[in-house]
């Protein structure tokens, strides 16, 4: 018997069938998918419409200007773009190693009875609202950072680097990065855990058979197999980090300034929109805030695209293809 007799023929997109439940379900599914694309397009269009006034008034200089003055109606997005990118980058740098290590612990090392309770605890962390993190941040984390961690960093050899200079207020870019890292930790951990669980045991057994130690097995067999999936988890976390508003605005200091020091206060795109939108009273002001929203949308897309590109160049293959 030939292969083609056993396997069904490739089904066309819309199967010609008079069975109405099949057809209507197919249309429903296609409709739902189109709806999502339509929503994204609508959001982009609405933002562009609202931003039109500011775009014509400031042009591309809006993206590089550091002035934000509602009294003279001059606006610029650069400090916010810088703040968003830097705080998200810090969050990823802190959260990804922690998250992957936790996922590894849960899949490779934890005793079976402990796994589910720890997983539940981590998922509860994801359920905590953003504002609670902000409150905890400003009342517990920031004083501790100001009086202990930042002092320790400033007095150690790290204090010679330009990243750790300047007066220590507690509220700072680094505090923002730490709070966001705690918030994206659950998503990175759970997705990484799923990825690591999907690594076939055959890979691990093969590595053991070749005489690898526990860490070597993890490094060679597990992490390299799961690399792309873990990268995907990091990108998911980054997506959440870029948009995080309430927790960040409470601990980042809300100062639209670009500074090399991580101890200096900063500002992010999402925070300034949340803070100033309700009271914005001139058309150019509102339009500039819309333009900031548009910039945030574009930055999110660009970062995701850059991540995909990086993935493609590093592994030589696209996402979704089986190794």
């Amino acid at each position: 018997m030939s292969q083609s007799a056993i396997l069904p023929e490739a089904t066309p997109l819309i199967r010609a069938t008079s069975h109405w439940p099949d057809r209507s379900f197919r249309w429903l599914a296609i409709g739902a998918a189109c709806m999502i694309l339509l929503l994204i397009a609508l959001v982009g269009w609405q933002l562009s419409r609202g931003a039109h006034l500011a775009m014509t008034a400031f042009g591309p200089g809006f993206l590089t200007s550091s002035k934000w003055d509602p009294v003279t109606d001059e606006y610029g997005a650069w400090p916010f773009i810088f703040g968003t990118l830097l705080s998200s980058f810090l969050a990823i740098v802190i959260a990804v190693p922690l998250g992957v290590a936790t996922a590894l612990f849960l899949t490779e090392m934890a005793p079976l009875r402990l796994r589910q309770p720890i997983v539940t605890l981590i998922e509860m962390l994801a359920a905590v609202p953003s504002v609670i993190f902000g409150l905890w941040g400003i009342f517990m984390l920031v004083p501790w950072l100001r009086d202990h961690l930042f002092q320790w960093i400033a007095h150690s050899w790290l204090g010679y680097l330009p990243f750790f200079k300047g007066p220590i207020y507690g509220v700072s870019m680094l505090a923002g990065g730490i709070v966001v890292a705690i918030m994206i930790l659950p998503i990175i951990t759970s997705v990484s855990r799923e990825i690591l669980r999907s690594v076939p045991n055959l890979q691990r057994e093969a590595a053991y058979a070749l005489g690898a130690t526990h860490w070597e097995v993890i490094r060679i067999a597990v992490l390299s197999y799961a690399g792309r999936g873990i990268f995907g988890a990091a990108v998911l976390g980054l997506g959440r980090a870029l948009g995080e508003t309430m927790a960040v605005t409470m601990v980042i200091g809300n100062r639209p300034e670009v500074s090399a020091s991580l101890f200096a206060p900063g500002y992010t795109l999402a925070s300034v929109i949340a803070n100033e939108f309700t009271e914005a009273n001139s058309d150019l002001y509102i339009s500039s805030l819309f333009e900031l929203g548009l910039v945030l949308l574009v930055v999110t897309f660009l970062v995701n695209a850059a991540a995909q590109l990086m993935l493609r160049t590093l592994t030589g293959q696209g996402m979704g293809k089986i190794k």
Partner: protein
Amino acid sequence: MLHTKKILALALTGLVAVASASAQTLINGAGATFPAPIYTKWFSEYSKVDPTVTFNYQAIGSGGGQKQILAETVDFGASDGPMSDENLAKAPRALWHIPTVAGAVVISYNIPDSPKIKLDGETLANIFLGKITNWRDPAIVALNPGVRLPDIGIVVVHRSDGSGTSYIFTDYLSNVSADWKSKAGKGTAVSWPAGLGGKGNAGVAGQLKESPGSIGYVELIYAVQNKLPYADLKNASGNYITPTIESVVAALATATIPDDFRFSMVNAPGADAYPIAGVTWLLVYEQQKDPVKGQKLVEFLKWAYSDGEKMASSLDYAPLPDSVKERVLKRVGEIKY
């Protein structure tokens, strides 16, 4: 089967009841957050006086209040800052500012032992400009002889969100310091030359509590309710005034109030006037669209200025002095419906 019939019958009677209950007049308003507590109290007290009208007020911010009354999606707006000429010109017909209550902005700080300190406009402006950076600066020491000031840096805290409180405060600073006027100016949000931003009164107060050596501004009501220390300020007559409701009423009494009621009362000339105070307005059209709603609104306003104002001080708001009340009542009487 019987159950579904019963539920259906109940639902129908419910619908009919709701339909008949809407013989009530509903008046919608939106705007400033600062007077929201006193407005809420007025609305609930007034429903006892006139049960046929209910008010629905959404505290979405002064900017939102101005936008909504211009778009006529609400029957009245509320704003902590007066509308700019540019915005007022967008109104389809004459839009009036009706002042209701006033409040003060106090300067709170966090220094060890929380001594009572005195400040004046120039020094305050220089602190917020970032020119004075230490509590032992000669300017502060000169104003506070005998007070043990710590040798620590000043951390300035301001509002990160746009607010009427910021408007009153920056209005005062622009009034007393030409340097501030050119560098930052006045507005619900400005480009702050120095300092950290906290969201809302709560954000600023939280920041103040957690940062030794910090100084910031909050509403008087908020400072009193949260037991924050605040400074005495030098007013235009040269006296150091502790912010209280009486000092705000004194400022109101001596402020110059033009015919359209859009005025600033910072740095008022009275001997007992507290210099950083401001009034909040209701925004109503001269010609009301709906005669029934218009009549109810005017009746409510007349009640507010005769009986409502008496409730203001219990909630730590300053009521309007009689001279101003008379003028406002006359204006309210001119609203056409």
